[in-house]
Each structure stands twice: as structure tokens, then as C-alpha cells.
């Protein structure tokens, strides 16, 4: 079964340095890390202390909110260090890795023979549960909920995004098994969004509703797809996963092993020879990027340049990320840089640059703010990049003043920060929309739950 989702609003940002379809592996790191800060709103509680030995799949810490949600080690070795910040907040857990991994055996199982509670249990024990996020709020799903549907977007339209189809090549069987397992968890349907412009093995996956998505970014955002297929109402829960994590779950059922390996793209204008790499969850950024960057001031982003997090070389790659973007820092002045129609190496949705003359040009954008923050002035620009049926500016204003009733009425449950990433980008007044929405969602968690 398949349907079409056509997105008209949006903006494609073409950046230099897209990853070439070429796969290498990186040298195995001596230390891996898990950063609990990758999981929004999580309060981690340690299960191990420094010096403890772990196998792959052994729980390292759990979520204080729900003790069932465990976070397991991606490698076998020894807990080397627990890095704490202010108020003893756990920032990072470093694990010294063995030469080769020893896996904890969860036992191979056929999802078709299991009931929902057994599937849940296996996912929770193995550390696969955190792969499942929920909408609204964009946080780890609550295992006690039953979602009305599960959405997987295998079409990423963000700048420098990795190709899911390429990353999943050779893991078709795992992916299908993962889908089989997930479909046990919902009474509704599992939805799989694929690139509507090119067919792949994903079009033949069983047990899902295929959505052929076409359109500009954010067409690939799962929140946009949900809003077109089965919009979220107050009280609803929809679960979402990344395609590669579905394959990791499938692999767990096929082999009984938690094997969090992932194909990631190292991309961006300041990468020499951007391409794909196979890595294990928790690999340090420096182990991936060293020797592959253009010298100079770089910003390394775990994720794409619109929604990713700025990282330094000691951090691990983000738990949910499948791309590392490296772009130049932009801490430079530009003399009369605001004059219309000059400085055309910059990209703009408006036609106040001549960049509209070269729609296919790939841009080398840096991190310059290109202005200063101002009050809301321009109207109509946010609507151009917001395909969800909400009023983005009014929702942002309601969120800024924490007017809960209005936020609810204007559709806060239907959005995640990533859906506002393009608004961050295009805003003339440089409104930090993602930050505002994140804070608003956190407030809703606290007040409404």
C-alpha cells in the first residue's frame, strides 16, 4: 500500500561538500563515550562505576524518569571515566574499549512469534529502546504508552543529509525484521516515508504503509509527514525512529546481539573528500574526522547544519545522528555587508542577493549570524517554509510568553524543534525558533505531560 505526500512549501539549501557514495571504515578507537546529554530531558542514574567491566549490551545507566529505559554499552571494555559538570550532572561516560568486542547474548528471536510485552522487554533490556522517540515533545518514548502509529522517515531533505537508502544497503533483511518487531508495538500502522523520486528496496518493505514523499526541505521531516497523514491531537502519542536504528533493532532479533553500528556521512565544505564511514555508536569525533578536514577555524556539527549540535573533537557522535558536518566558522566582519545585491556568495530565500540567478549553485556557508537579533518585523516569510498547518509566528509568540492554552490551540503538539530549523535560517530578525519551541515543549511536558 502506498500513498503520495507532496510538500509545496519549504526551501532546499544546497551546500558544498555532500558525501560521495563511497564507504570506508574508521580505525577502532581506544575509548568510546556515551553522552547522556544527547537525550533531551533525561536524568541519568549510573549502574556502574569507574573500573567496572562491560560487554556490548550491558546496561551502563538508566533513566530516572523510568527505570526500565536502560542505556547499554556500545563496546566491550572498562568504564574509564565519568565526566560530571555543575551540580554533578553526568556529561559523559568514557569506556576504554577492548581490542575486539564481546557481546552479551539476548537470544535470537522471531518477532512474529512474540507479543508486544516481549518485544518491549527485549528492546528495553538491550538498550534499543532509546532509538524510539515520541511525538509530541521529541523525547524518548514512554514504554507504558501504546502509540497510535509509528513513523519512519527514510527520506532526508536537510542540507548535507546522508542517504538512508545508501546507508541501509546490505541491511535489507535487518530492516525488514526491525519493522516486523516494531509493528507489534502499535495498534495502528507503521508508516515508512521514502523518496518519491527514486525507487529502492524500501518500496518493497512489507507490513508498512509506504509514503512517496516529494518536495523541498522539510518534506523529509517526520513531523511534516505525520501532519499530512495522521496529525497529532492533544493526548496522542506517535513514535518515530531513524531507519538505521530500525536495522539495529532487526539485527538484535536476528542475532541476539546489540550491535549499534551505523553508516554515517562526513560532509561539508571543510571536509577533504566527503564520503561515508561505518562507525560504532559512541565513536569519538576526532577518530572520525582527524586528517580529513581543511585547516582553519572549523565548526564540527554532529547532525546537519540546521539541527545538529556543535561538538568538539572529544565528544562522541550524537546518539541519533548519521552525519557529521564541518563548515567554516564565520567570525569575520563584512564592510557594508547589508547593502542589497552585494555579497552574492551568500544564500538567501529572498531575492535581495543575486543568488536567485544560480539556483543550482552549491554554497559554502559559514556560521556568521549575518546580522543581529531584532523584534519580529517581516511577516509571511515563516509561512513559506512551514508545510504543517499551523501559524508559526503566532505559535512562536505564544510560546515566548508561555501561554499554554494558546500554544495548545495553535498546535504545539504537532511540532518539534527540527520543524522550525528553516525558520531559524530564513528569519530576517534572526529569531531563535528552535530554541523557543524546545523550551515550549519542555514547559508542556512539565505542565501537561
Amino acid at each position, binding site marked *: 500500500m502506498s500513498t503520495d505526500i507532496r510538500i509545496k512549501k519549504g526551501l532546499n*539549501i544546497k*551546500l558544498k561538500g555532500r558525501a560521495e557514495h563511497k564507504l570506508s571504515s574508521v580505525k577502532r578507537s581506544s575509548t568510546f563515550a556515551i553522552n547522556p546529554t544527547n537525550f533531551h530531558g533525561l536524568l541519568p542514574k549510573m549502574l556502574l562505576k569507574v573500573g567496572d567491566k562491560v560487554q556490548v549490551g550491558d546496561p551502563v545507566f538508566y533513566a530516572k524518569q523510568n527505570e526500565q529505559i536502560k542505556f547499554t554499552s556500545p563496546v566491550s571494555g572498562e568504564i574509564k571515566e565519568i565526566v560530571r559538570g555543575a551540580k554533578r550532572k553526568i556529561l559523559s561516560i568514557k569506556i576504554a574499549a577492548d581490542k575486539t568486542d564481546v557481546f552479551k547474548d539476548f537470544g535470537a528471536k522471531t518477532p512474529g512469534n512474540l507479543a508486544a510485552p516481549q518485544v518491549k522487554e527485549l528492546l528495553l533490556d538491550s538498550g534499543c529502546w532509546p532509538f524510539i522517540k515520541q511525538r509530541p515533545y521529541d523525547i524518548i518514548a514512554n514504554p507504558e504508552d501504546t502509540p497510535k502509529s509509528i513513523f519512519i522517515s527514510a527520506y532526508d531533505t536537510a*542540507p548535507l543529509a546522508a542517504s538512508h537508502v545508501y546507508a541501509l544497503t546490505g541491511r535489507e533483511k535487518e530492516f525488514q525484521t526491525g519493522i516486523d518487531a516494531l509493528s507489534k508495538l502499535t495498534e495502528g500502522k507503521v508508516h515508512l516515508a521514502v523518496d518519491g523520486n527514486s525507487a529502492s528496496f524500501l518500496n518493497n518493505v512489507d507490513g508498512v504503509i509506504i509514503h512517496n514523499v516529494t518536495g523541498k526541505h522539510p518534506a523529509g521531516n517526520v513531523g511534516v509527514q505525520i501532519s499530512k497523514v495522521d*496529525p497529532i*491531537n492533544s493526548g496522542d502519542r506517535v513514535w518515530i525512529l531513524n531507519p538505521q536504528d530500525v536495522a539495529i533493532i532487526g539485527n538484535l532479533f536476528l542475532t541476539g546481539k546489540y550491535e549499534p553500528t551505523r553508516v554515517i556521512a562526513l560532509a561539508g565544505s571543510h571536509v577533504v573528500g566527503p564520503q561515508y564511514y561505518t562507525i560504532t555508536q559512541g565513536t569519538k569525533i576526532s577518530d572520525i574526522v582527524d586528517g580529513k578536514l581543511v585547516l582553519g577555524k572549523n*565548526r564540527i556539527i554532529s547532525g546537519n*547544519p*540546521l*539541527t*545538529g549540535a556543535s561538538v568538539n573533537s572529544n565528544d562522541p557522535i550524537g546518539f541519533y545522528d548519521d552525519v557529521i*558536518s564541518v*563548515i567554516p566558522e*564565520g*567570525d*569575520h*566582519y*563584512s*564592510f*557594508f*555587508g*547589508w*547593502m*542589497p545585491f552585494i555579497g552574492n556568495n*551568500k544564500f*538567501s*530565500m*529572498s*531575492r*535581495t*542577493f543575486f543568488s536567485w540567478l544560480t539556483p543550482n549553485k552549491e554554497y559554502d*556557508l*559559514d*556560521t*556568521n*549570524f*549575518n*546580522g*543581529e537579533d*531584532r*523584534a519580529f*518585523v517581516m*511577516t*509571511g516569510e515563516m*509561512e513559506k517554509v512551514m508545510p504543517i*498547518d499551523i*501559524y508559526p*509566528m*503566532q505559535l512562536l509568540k505564544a510560546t515566548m510568553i508561555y501561554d499554554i492554552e494558546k500554544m495548545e*490551540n*495553535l*498546535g504545539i503538539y504537532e511540532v518539534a524543534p527540527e520543524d522550525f*530549523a528553516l525558520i*531559524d*535560517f*530564513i528569519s*530576517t530578525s*534572526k529569531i*531563535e525558533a*528552535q*530554541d523557543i519551541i524546545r523550551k515550549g515543549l519542555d514547559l508542556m511536558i512539565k505542565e501537561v505531560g
Partner: protein
Amino acid sequence: MDFLRKQLDKIQPHFEKGGKFEKFGPAYGGIETFLFVPNHTTKKGAHIRDGIDLKRVMMVVVIALLPALIFGMWNVGYQNMGDGHSFWDYFSFGAIRFLPMIIISYGVGLGIEFAYAIFRGHSVNEGYLVTGLLIPMIMPIDLPLWMLTISVIFAVIIGKEAFGGTGMNILNPALIARAFALFSYAPFMSGSTVWVADSVADGVSGETVLGELAANTIPDTSVFDMFMGYMPGSVGETSVLMILIGAALLLFTGIASWRIMLSSVIGASLVGLLFNAVGSSTNELFNFPWWQHLIVGGFAFGMVFMATDPVSGAQTNTGKWIYGFLIGVFAILIRVVNPTLPEGVMMAILLMNVFAPTIDHYVIESNIKRRKKRLQKVNA
């Protein structure tokens, strides 16, 4: 450039926290960001940002105003001197009259903006770059400079800063300046003698098309002259051709709303047609062809540069259709049925400025209702 940057870097510490001139930090910031787009980088949210910023937007509007501005200065000379002089004669005559008005408007307005920024400790906003040019362009050329000064002060303080500055105001500040001047100094703002420089002294007739119609005389200005702007009026507003050039730039760059411009023309045309159909023997304005309403009395200028002000206008796309349409309707309605106020355009825009939030409210309410209905359907 490098030299300038070095000088700024040298004095910058004085204006930072703990520096000698800490209080004047916002003023320094205002000048610095005018010269250089700052070296700020993204700290949270998206790591890359669109090249556009508010200064660039405002400058595009200023550029869009230039054709009308230059023509307006030429026309000031032309209206006073009549045929037979060179372009430069007309232009320099107009420039000598008009440049002081621009200087006053920018000087006084920006002075207040900077003072407020220092006083309130916020950064200087660039909104006044456009307002400061709009105000003299919609005033009569003979308006005494002290009246202009007071109008600017009123508009900036009461119209804008009292609400919190650029982006917060309810009414269009340039129109506030004009409305203030009209009601405070009516003899200098209306009638047959104010629209042409030195018209009394030089004995030049300076009645506008609408003024003549209101007096029930049929104007002898040709349609071509109306469109080209060879007629008396405020400096910026006479030439529809020049305004359309500006409009083209605003629409092409995506800065002004085409919805407002289009719907206001539709609204005005419909009301004009209605009056034409009704007709009147006592009010020539009823019989003035509907399409000619669109090219006189500052209608084009108002629709292109004033109604489209994003801050005081409707903010939703549906709201913009309604807002623009009603501006068109009221502009012609006021103009025709109240001959003492040929300035229907200004009144209509100010009126709809007040109602814009109400329009938006109902537009957004329909979105909210849709969402609630969906919820009810699921729960049912």
C-alpha cells in the same frame, strides 16, 4: 576598510561594560553595525543563516523609494517653473526645497532613536531608515520645517517608541506623522496652495485632481499626466510610473506582500465601480472613472509603501487579503463621500492598522477551530 575596522576595535573597549562610555554602548553599536555586519556567529539553533537581515530589507525599500523620490524633486521644480527649463533646473530647484526636509526627518528621527537606545539600553533598530524617508515624501513641499520636526517627534515617540520600538508599533509611524500634521496644521496640509512650492508668491495654481473634483470642477489633468505624475501633490506620491518601478522591486525581492497590493486594488476598483454606477449630480467624485482613482491622490504610494508595512498590517496571509481589500474600499469611500478629506488613503490605512490584529485573530481562530474539530472527531 581595515583602517576603519582597526579604529573601531581601538575605541570599542570604552563602550563595553565597565568602559568609560558604557552608557553610550547602544549608540556605538548602532554606528558599528551600520558600517560592518558584525562577526557574530551562531550560538544555538541552526548553524547557518540566511544572508538577509533587517538592514538589508530596509535598504531595499529605500532603493524602491528612490525613483519616486528623484521624480518628486524634479516635479517640485516643474510644477513651480512650468515648461521651458532643463532637467537640472527643475531638479535642483526641487532638491534645494526637499533635501532639508529629508535631513530634518532623518536627523530628528534617528536622534530620538539613538537617545532611546542609550536611555533604554537596547540596540538601535533600522526601522527608521524607511520611515525617515517616507515622512517627507508624503508631506506638502511648502510645509515649514519646524512643523515637520514636531510631526517627526510625535510619530517616533508616541507612534513607535512608546510601544517599544520597531516591530512593536500598532500604527504606521510615517502616517502618524502625516495625520498629526494634518490635524495640527491643517492650513499647511490641505487646500489649493500647499502642493506647489511658493504657489502663492509665484501665482501658480496648485490644486490637486481630487481637490478640484471635491470643488465639483472637472480637472483638466490628462490621464497620461496623472500616470506620469506631472501634477501637484506631495513629493513622493504623484508619479504612478515611478511607484510601480519601486513596487516591482519590492515584489520581486519578496519583501512587500503582493496579496495586500493586489487586494487593495481590487477593493478600490469595486467601490469605484459602484460609485460610477450610482452617479451623482452634486458630487463630481462619484463620476470620476473608477480606474482613475487608482492613479491619483497617493493611492498607489499608499498601497505600495504604506499598506504593506509588515509591522502595522495584517500578519497572516488570509488576513492580508482582507486587510488590503478593506484599505482599498475605505480609501475610495472616504475620498468620495467626504470631500473635505481627499486624503482617504491615509485614513483608510490607519483605520485598518487598528483592525489588523482583529482580522488576524479571526483568521487564526479558524485554524484553532479546525484543530479542535479534528480532536472531537477522534474522540467521538
